[in-house]
């Protein structure tokens, strides 16, 4: 087990160290407000997990946002394999998604999760060589080198992408005939049957942030995609009225939806220990009286704080060590004395 503080200098070193030694295990990256667990096999990243978030559910959400899955689609079981089986059974979804696209969606979900990890924010790193027993079907194998290069490129082209993502700019097919397109470029080009916003295209493409950026900039350079300032669909006022406000509404719904999902996940799945142990502050409105409710709330709040305070295990350990040294001397004198003389 290796634990250290992450900064801009050592994060890449840690990843390279794991990759070069072809280690397997999990690297936990804990920020102040969120945490990630990177699963390594033979030095390559195969999955990125977050507490309380099921990767398969997250993927199904991405697929729904991309319009591949209908909104009515409900994922019954956990895991990519189960999701793929359910998609195959679904009459509409199965016609819109083949296995290659599904695998690509899984890979780009993992990549997007990786790009969310920013070394500049500062976090705790903790590598545990014990490998998690997770389902391996459909999981990608992302090389650390590739990821690190992607991060550098993302930062370098950030300003260009910001320009594309400004409100009012939309993308449409250019005049040039497409020749020798990469996989990502083909995906984007095929989706641009009609003009659309950059963000919308990205959502529909199911590509990761970097893959999308690389493909879209390449297509623009080749002239296969043209950026235009005025939307053919909405005026700027209409965009503000409808697009932006809808977006705000959606984000609020999404936030509540996530909270609801967290609460749902925290109790009924006993095998997901972390979810079961994560403190959920629930104050019953039917408590007898406001005083009791306030007290319960205070206790629950304290309990929640303690459950996340790394100081608590340290205190417990110190208690054990002190007691293990002192108690035998106090209580086992007859044991020690009986071996002092025949």
């Amino acid at each position: 087990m290796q634990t250290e503080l992450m900064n801009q200098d050592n994060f890449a070193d840690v990843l390279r160290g794991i990759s070069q030694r072809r280690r397997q295990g999990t690297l936990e990256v804990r920020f102040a407000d969120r945490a990630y667990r990177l699963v390594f096999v033979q030095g390559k990243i195969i999955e990125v997990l977050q507490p309380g978030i099921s990767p398969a559910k997250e993927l199904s959400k991405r697929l729904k946002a991309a319009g591949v899955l209908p909104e009515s689609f409900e994922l019954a079981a956990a895991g990519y394999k189960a999701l793929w089986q359910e998609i195959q059974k679904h009459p509409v979804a199965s016609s819109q998604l083949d296995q290659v696209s599904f695998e690509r969606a899984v890979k780009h979900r993992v990549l997007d999760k990786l790009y969310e990890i920013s070394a500049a924010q500062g976090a705790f790193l903790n590598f545990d060589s014990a490998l998690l027993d997770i389902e391996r079907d459909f999981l990608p194998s992302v090389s650390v080198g590739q990821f690190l290069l992607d991060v550098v490129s993302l930062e370098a082209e950030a300003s260009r992408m910001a320009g594309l993502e400004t409100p009012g700019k939309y993308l449409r097919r250019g005049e040039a005939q497409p020749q020798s397109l990469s996989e990502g470029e083909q995906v984007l080009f095929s989706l641009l049957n009609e003009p659309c916003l950059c963000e919308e295209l990205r959502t529909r493409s199911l590509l990761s942030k970097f893959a999308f950026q690389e493909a879209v900039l390449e297509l623009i350079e080749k002239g296969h995609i043209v950026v235009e300032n005025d939307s053919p669909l909405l005026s700027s006022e209409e965009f503000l009225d409808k697009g932006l406000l809808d977006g705000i509404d959606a984000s609020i719904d999404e936030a509540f939806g996530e909270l609801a999902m967290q609460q749902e996940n925290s109790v009924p799945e006993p095998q997901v220990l972390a979810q079961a142990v994560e403190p959920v502050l629930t104050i019953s409105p039917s408590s007898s009286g406001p005083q009791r409710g306030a007290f319960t709330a205070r206790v629950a709040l304290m309990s929640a704080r303690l459950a996340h305070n790394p100081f608590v295990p340290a205190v417990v350990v110190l208690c054990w060590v002190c007691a293990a040294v002192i108690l035998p001397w106090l209580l086992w004198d007859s044991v020690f004395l009986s071996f002092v003389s025949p």
Partner: protein
Amino acid sequence: MESAVRFIKIVTLVVTIPLLLSAVPVWADGDTASSADDQAGVSEHSSSVSLPLARIQDTWRNILEAMGQHDLKRVNQLVIELDSLKLIADVRGLDSYALSLIDVARRHFKVGQRSEAAFYIRKALQLSPDSPIVLAKAFPLVRETSSISVPSYLSRIMNGVWSHPKVWLQLLKGSIYPLLLAFTFGVMVAILLTFVIKVDSLIRMIGKPISSAYRGLIAPLLLTLLVLLPLTLGPLWTVCAWCLCLYIFLPQHRWLGFIGSAVLVAWGCLIPVRESLQTWLMNPGIQTMLDGSSGEFREGASERLEALAAQRSRDGALFFSLGQALRRSGRYADAEHAFLRAEVLLGSQAWTRAERAVNAYLSGNAQQADALFIEAEKLGLRNAAFYFNYSKVKLELLDTEKSREYLGRTVSMDPELARTLQQREELLGPDARLAVAETHLPFYHILNSALMPTQNLQTRLDEFSQILMPGASPPLMSLVGAALIGMFFFVQRRRSRVVPLSSYANTGFPQLVQRCMRIIPGGAWIAVNRPVIACALLSVSLFLLMPILHWPFESSGLMEIIPELAPYYVSFVSLLVLGTCYVGVHVEE
């Protein structure tokens, strides 16, 4: 390959020497007392009425006088005389005299008289050449005053131990509690450190069934109580409770629980063995019997053994020794009865047949002796003593060819024994009762004798077990341990589950605890999830540290018997502990 074998031998010696010396205190006390008696001119030999033993006593008095006059030449002559008398009297070693000479040698060495010290050491080893206690006590001075090969000297000590059942049994008795205590504390520390490094997981598991509103408050308290409460019930209940916790919460470390359970079973089985040995060895009659099994019979041995035989009528080894003692005192008919009784109790085996054959030969019945020797040979007895005695019978029956053949076998098997017995024949005559070779019972028969039930043992056992595990008797300890071992087979290794993140993630341990774990020999292996290796290293280190700590009392023999060895031993153990910690730090990295 050869160097590997040599290495293994040296390691065996290094590991066995503390064991040997851990058994010494009671023994050493007895010898010191004897030495004091000898100095005062009063010893058990003084009561002797037989000529050789009385002459030995007289000669020793003369040696003391000569030492007082610093007449080394005369001392030398008298020691040579004493050596001859020893042979005539069939006394294997004069340990108490030899130890006195070692004390004198030490005094000379302290004042810088190296040559005198070397002289007295040589004479001491001449009087008791194969006594492990004499060899061990003489070791530091032998090293200082002469050039010896340390491994060969140590192997000489080991051979001495091997040929003295009394020493073996003292060794066994003296090593039981130190070993058990070392393993008990080793397991306890290993389990506690395993809990320490898994504290966050343990809190999460304890907190799982608790309501989330109180989990953060209650789980750490509950876990602390669970771990610390057993400490109030004594060490063995603590081991028991912690093993259970390991099985329930950390099944991936269930092998550590298995070791803890095995330690409980060992306590349950070995407390009766050790206490039985203790009571048994304290008995003067038993001490006479053990002297006899080492080939040393003192005056009054047969009377003491007869008195003991009346109390222990089921002890075959005792009747065997009684037979030998009676034969040496010329009471052949009584000896035959004793051997027959031993044969009934020990079952059909070769040793009583061979002794009966010797008895028959000495009482003048060579034909019966021949028949009994044939039976003994059929039962598998083929050692040097057997062939020497048989050659005498064949000579008596005028079968000179066979006699020569058997004597040749004796010489080829054990030239030293053949030489000694032939010398004794020359001095005492071929038909003398001391000019025959003694047959010794195998060690397991003596051990069986030691483990026979003794009066008032149960009270002692109950008292002792209450101290270690209140409310439990030795059988209950074994039962609890066996139940835990049974649980081991039902606890399956839990597979790691998808637990992306949880409470107390990235828990950093206090620096103090981290450093302590590195200082503890084997602690680093806990940090790399190898608690069984850690437990083994901890237990061995504790066992080696016990002679330095003088606890338990049986371990203090090392420092008492060879004080000169103490600095070397302390250095050796310190280096070993430091080496273990150093390797541990690298393993951890």
